């Protein structure tokens, strides 16, 4: 399988995730965009690991670490979003600034 397929897919996912983070008004959906970008990175790591046939499985182990960090990030992020919602009764990131 050409190495370019996963790399181009991850580029597309990263761009879509970036659009989601910048364009979405709902704070929870901004976090979904971040998850999408992290998944694009995971795809890159796994692709390069498989391409390089690494003795230490560096790419796949780092992917596991990224997944754990992403889980921590989404837990913490949603806690902050819920605290924001309790304080201001909104999760609209445009409305919070005003």
């Amino acid at each position, binding site marked *: 399988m050409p190495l370019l397929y996963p790399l*181009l897919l991850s580029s597309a996912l990263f761009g879509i995730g970036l659009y989601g983070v910048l364009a979405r*008004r709902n704070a929870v959906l901004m976090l979904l965009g971040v998850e999408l970008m992290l998944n694009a990175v995971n795809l890159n790591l796994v692709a390069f690991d498989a391409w390089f046939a690494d003795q230490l499985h560096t790419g796949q182990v780092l992917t596991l670490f990224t997944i754990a960090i992403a889980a921590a990030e989404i837990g913490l992020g949603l806690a902050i979003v819920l605290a924001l919602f309790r304080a201001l009764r909104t999760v609209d990131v445009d409305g919070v600034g005003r």
Partner: protein
Amino acid sequence: MSLTELVFLVLAVVAAGSALLSMTSGQLVHSALWLVVTLGAVAGCFVLMTAEFVAWVQVLVYVGSVVVLVIFALMLTRQTSATTAEVTGNRWIAAALGVVAAIGLGATMVAGFRGEDIEGRRIGTAGSIGQALFTDWVLPFEILSGVLLAALIGAIVISRSGSDR
């Protein structure tokens, strides 16, 4: 074109299309459910790149818990005025930046890795990944468990701090 490449291309189209739908859908819960499709398709891509253990972790952690958490948060923060526009006014700038990022990254990848092939000589089974994780990567693994614990305690503290006022 081999069967692996064909399946990979189908999964790639599914992943990118559902990611786009997830980020543009007007219904909040639909966004989360489209994200499930994206993450599942990416897990399939992991299997095709001989990373079967990572694929299972992806299904367990992302599809199993992260999306459930997101759907819970969407339902807890249900706003009274559901008719507000779901995207900001500068969505076209955001779209332009997203396209520029995707094209820039894609062009870099094409320039750097055109013609390379994945052969899948070292398969990432649970055994081989566990071997690597608990011999060469054990220190980062332990540090990561500390980070995860700190983040979860922090999440509990943040989400409890406003409730007793």
